[in-house]
């Protein structure tokens, strides 16, 4: 089976001319089906940049990057938009739409896909919210939820459309210890049950236990790839 994510020799620079700064150097990385990979490293080492490239949020410059069967080097805007629909994103901030309920927010991830009507979408969004323990909060707006609950809604939104890959960038950074742990464990449990691979950037040493593999970056390079104990 093809790896959901396969990078080789990805190099990336910001800026032009004098200001040009290389932030990724020859990065190669692959994630196997169902694998949960944690990416760590000091601030400024290029983790976020790598994630935006993989998520087709930024144009590639050099190297090969195959995500869910789509080569990203030279891919057009339409292809990249289409690929994003098959990736679940979890950001540091939840970025939920304040004027929608939790259920409607989750359903937004389904509206991009055909095959379901509104009722079915809302039903499935409700089930997903139940799966992250928010069955009783489905019809609340983000402002009525705690930080941890909002991030769980974001997890539900990332997973509801059954993405082929989940990308998360420091999803616990804005949360306290307990809710951070809870969110990450929920995410890894759900993903594992569905066989969804995850690439998760974190600084947080307390959540390393969820990983199949930990990849460390420094100064734009991958310096070490450890298999984590399971």
């Amino acid at each position, binding site marked *: *089976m093809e790896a959901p994510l396969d990078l080789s020799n990805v190099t990336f620079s910001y800026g032009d001319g004098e200001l040009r700064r290389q932030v990724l150097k020859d990065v190669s990385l692959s994630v196997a*089906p*169902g694998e949960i990979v944690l990416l760590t490293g000091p601030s400024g080492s290029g983790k*976020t940049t790598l*994630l*935006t490239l993989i*998520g087709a*949020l*930024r144009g590639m410059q050099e190297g090969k990057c195959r995500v869910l069967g789509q080569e990203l080097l030279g891919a057009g805007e*339409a292809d990249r*938009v*289409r*690929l*994003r*629909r*098959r*990736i679940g*994103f979890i*950001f*540091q*901030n939840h*970025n*939920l*739409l*304040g*004027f*929608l309920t939790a259920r*409607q927010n989750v359903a*937004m*991830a*389904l*509206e*991009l*896909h*055909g*095959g*379901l009507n509104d009722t*079915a979408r809302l*039903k*499935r969004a409700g*089930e*997903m919210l*139940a*799966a992250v323990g928010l069955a009783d909060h489905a019809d609340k707006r983000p402002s009525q939820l705690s930080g941890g609950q909002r991030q769980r809604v974001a997890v539900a*939104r990332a997973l509801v*459309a*059954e*993405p*082929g890959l989940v990308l998360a*960038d420091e999803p616990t950074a804005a949360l306290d210890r307990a809710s951070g742990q809870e969110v990450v464990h929920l995410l890894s449990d*759900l993903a594992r*049950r*569905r*066989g969804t691979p995850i690439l998760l*950037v974190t600084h947080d040493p307390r959540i390393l236990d969820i990983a199949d593999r930990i990849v460390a970056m420094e100064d734009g390079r991958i310096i070490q790839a450890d298999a984590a104990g399971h």
Partner: protein
Amino acid sequence: MDHIGRPDPVPLSDADHPARPRAGAMDALGLALRLAWRQLRSDRARLMTAVAGVMFACVLVFMQLGFKGALFDSATNLLNSMRADLFLMHPMTEASFRPEHIPRARAWQALADADVAQAVPIYMAQASMRNPESGRRRTVQVIGLDVTANAVRFEGLAPLTAALTRPDTFAFDNRSRPEFGPVGEMFAAHGPFRVQIGTRMFELVGMIDIGPSFGADGNAVMSEVNFRRIFSRDPAQTDLVALRLRPGADLGAVQARLQALLPDDVLVLTHPELVAAERAYWENGTPIGFIFLFGSVMGLVVGMVIVYQILFADIAGHLSEYATLKAMGYSNLYLSGVVLGAAIILAVIGFIPGFVTSLFLYDVVAKGTFLPLGMPVERAVGVFALIFGMCFTAGLLAMRKLRDANPADMF
């Protein structure tokens, strides 16, 4: 891939079957509109501001068009009510309140055509008339003509012809502005009474129907002889000649023959042509049309700025949410659709109260000024199109702010 534990086995097209068609364009449009509406609805104060802005523009445009229409309608009230078959007018006459004189002899020359049964010179001038109640004077349009000839058929004139042939008598326009006093009521209650026109006392002998115009607040019709008692004018010069044709005469043919027969100091016009020429003067020969156009455009600009501000602030205040939607795979086009959808919703929900308010104001104005303010369907449709275009443009302008929502900045 391991599928156990999925909440629902229904597959999703993009994830599992890339070949299956995506949600239809109509679905997407409906969803974009719904999202736009939910966003608008979430902030009542902002929604109200936007609706008020659209409503304001709508009312302003309706009032401008209403006044313009009423002005042009009322400007032609007098000529419109002079029903005759053909008219002779000086080619340089621009408007009936300031006519160029034509030789009265043209009327008799026109009689040379076998199909012309009657030729009636019409004299027009303005004088002041004293309000019989308050004594105040207002400008009245005085029309002098041979009242016994029935070439000119003013509403209500026929039964008054005998009385009007007496010296110092006149008929007054029932639809004149109320500043002339309750002339109609007084006449209905007490019959004929004396009113001062210019420096002479005249006896009011009846009421007719013409309607005021911007040039004059009311109309007084009298015989040619009585007319000359107010205005000392060369009797050989007249302002307009009304012609009555023999029954069965071909209007177009007579018009062409007369135009060929008469010198070019007169134009031969049908009644609709005469009215159209008068209207064209007000529309094109005066800045009035431009003033109303300017007022309408200002209303639209103000409305557009308000709608733009609201839509722009909505995007600017939710850049990270829009960027998140882009990261989730919502296209720029879809999100542009959401912004335009919001603009269109504002157009619709702003137009409805704007329309109702305008109808109400039309009524108030019609009662207050006696200007005929009607709401023709074309005007309602046209204003809706303008408001729609206004909101759409505001949406197009605000949409550019979406570019600042960059999903790459989200992580």
